[in-house]
């Protein structure tokens, strides 16, 4: 790791005196510094990439085989492939965003984050951006392999809307992850269990493997608080021939709701982080390690 790759403190023209950034420059450099290990550092152990792709792909294959065994229409295979790829993002938000500050606490880094003159919000944003880039690559690999393996037919009605939905869903999702991270700041061993608990129930209510239109309206509406619910539903409507007939609500409304969720989660993350940080300091829980 050299200074070009991680320019937190840059050298000033006056030899021997490091120039210390402040304000938005420091914020930006913190974001880059925290995003760096997410994008580049994770590639250090190549086998992680293999397992990160293989494990969700195994789930995709299993659910596709179930659909084939019970004679489902071909588009459902595509729904599963798309949902399976999106599980990578949910797993990333749960394990590498929400419970990340717990891991940092366990390893002794959290106190350093708090002591350093940078913004915790910048650290969370760096984690989110780095995680999003790295996970997008993995999700893309899962989508390509799954699509080729099961010959999924995509009929995209609007690439622009598809791109907009994806970006909005990711922004809202990682905003939610940042909010959870601040809430998890106070947790210890239970953080692991709570992240573990939030997998299958979310796969169910968000319709990772089937259209949520099949739920009663109010259940589907309530589950829309998780950005992937509407994101997946809109992407399926835009990418598959039978998508619009199986969609929950119109894509336009889903885009609007996702935009609102982005603002709500990012704002909530900002305020919750400040509150939880103060609370954790007051209660002396930033360095505790309850195994």
């Amino acid at each position, binding site marked *: 790791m050299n200074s070009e790759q991680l320019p937190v403190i840059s050298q000033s023209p006056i030899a021997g005196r490091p120039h210390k950034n402040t304000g938005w420059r420091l914020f930006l450099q913190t974001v880059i510094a925290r995003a760096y290990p997410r994008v580049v550092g994770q590639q250090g152990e190549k086998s992680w990439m293999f397992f990160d792709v293989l494990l969700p792909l195994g789930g995709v294959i299993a659910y596709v085989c179930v659909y084939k065994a019970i004679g*489902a229409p071909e588009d459902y295979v595509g729904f599963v492939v798309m949902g399976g790829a999106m599980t990578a993002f949910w797993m990333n938000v749960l394990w590498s965003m929400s419970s990340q500050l717990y891991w940092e606490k366990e390893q002794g880094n959290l106190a350093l984050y708090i002591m350093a003159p940078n913004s915790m919000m910048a650290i969370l944003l760096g984690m989110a951006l780095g995680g999003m880039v790295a996970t997008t690559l993995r999700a893309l690999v899962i989508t390509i392999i799954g699509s080729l393996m099961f010959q999924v037919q995509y009929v995209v009605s609007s690439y622009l809307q598809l791109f907009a939905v994806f970006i909005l869903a990711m922004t809202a999702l990682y905003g939610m992850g940042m909010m959870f991270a601040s809430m998890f700041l106070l947790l210890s061993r239970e953080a692991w269990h709570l992240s573990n608990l939030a997998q299958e129930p979310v796969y169910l209510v968000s319709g990772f493997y089937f*259209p949520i239109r099949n739920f009663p309206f109010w259940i589907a509406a309530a589950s829309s608080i998780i950005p992937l619910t509407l994101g997946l539903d809109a992407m399926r409507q835009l990418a598959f021939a039978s998508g619009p007939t199986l969609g929950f609500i119109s894509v336009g409304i889903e885009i609007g709701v996702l935009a609102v969720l982005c603002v709500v989660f990012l704002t909530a993350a900002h305020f919750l982080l400040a509150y939880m940080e103060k609370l954790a300091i007051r209660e002396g829980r930033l360095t505790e390690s309850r195994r």
Partner: protein
Amino acid sequence: MTTLALQNPKSRLRNFVVAAWLGWQIESNWTDPFLFAVYSVVKPISAAAILVVMYSIITQGNFDSPVFPYIYLGNTFYMYVGAIMTGISWTIIDDREHYKTLKYMYIAPISVPVYLIGRGVAKFIVGSISVTITILFGVFFLHVRIDPLAVNWPMFVLALVVGVLMLAMMGLMLAGVTLLTAHHYGAYGEAVAGALYLFSGAIFPLEVLPAYLRPVGYIMPTTYWLELIRRSLVGSVAQAFPTLSGLSDMQILGILVGLTVAFGILSIVVFRWCEYRARERGLIDRVTNY
């Protein structure tokens, strides 16, 4: 003294019981009983509900077909694979990386394989709670038709006992491999469990797989174990798919016992070899900041 302790069956039993108690404390004391109960109920029911919703969408709610209990029961009992097999191998990572106590286990007068299997008991108990709740939920709310008077109880109990032993031995083999690996969290365990999920006909018949992959399923003991469990609970499920319909219950039991013995011997050999290599390479107390 160490050798004598290891050879004494009473010491082994005490070792096993204490490991089981320790495992239970680790599994359950991270929260209050209410949250633990919620955790034990919500997760398995959600996993089962995904399949139920998928099935009901495509079949328009045809729960009378034997295909439904095939899928539901296969998925439910597969929870034991994750709980026992993956759980035992996870103990290595937990003790080595998290609690940093694995080295102390090796210098204590205990048998490490017995200790590992003892730790698996807690996973078995938690898994049994999940399996029971999921079955009851299926019977009362999801049209899974299990008639207690028609269940072949002796076959069910026998299949369950053999299956749990088989999974424990496979977990021991995986624990051996985990002793040699670093930087991989529980990925090996999850990958093996995922592969078994695909190749054991847990939620779909092997016929759905390409012909060249099916033999993998035929040599897996979990394939026969799940089939036997399903048949003992719902006899008609044997007709759901043709995979093993040509075999009688006793034939399947015979194959299951034979494969369990074979995998059991292989597990002990693999674990001993991996353990030797781990000691030789100084991996027992290696911490990788997982």
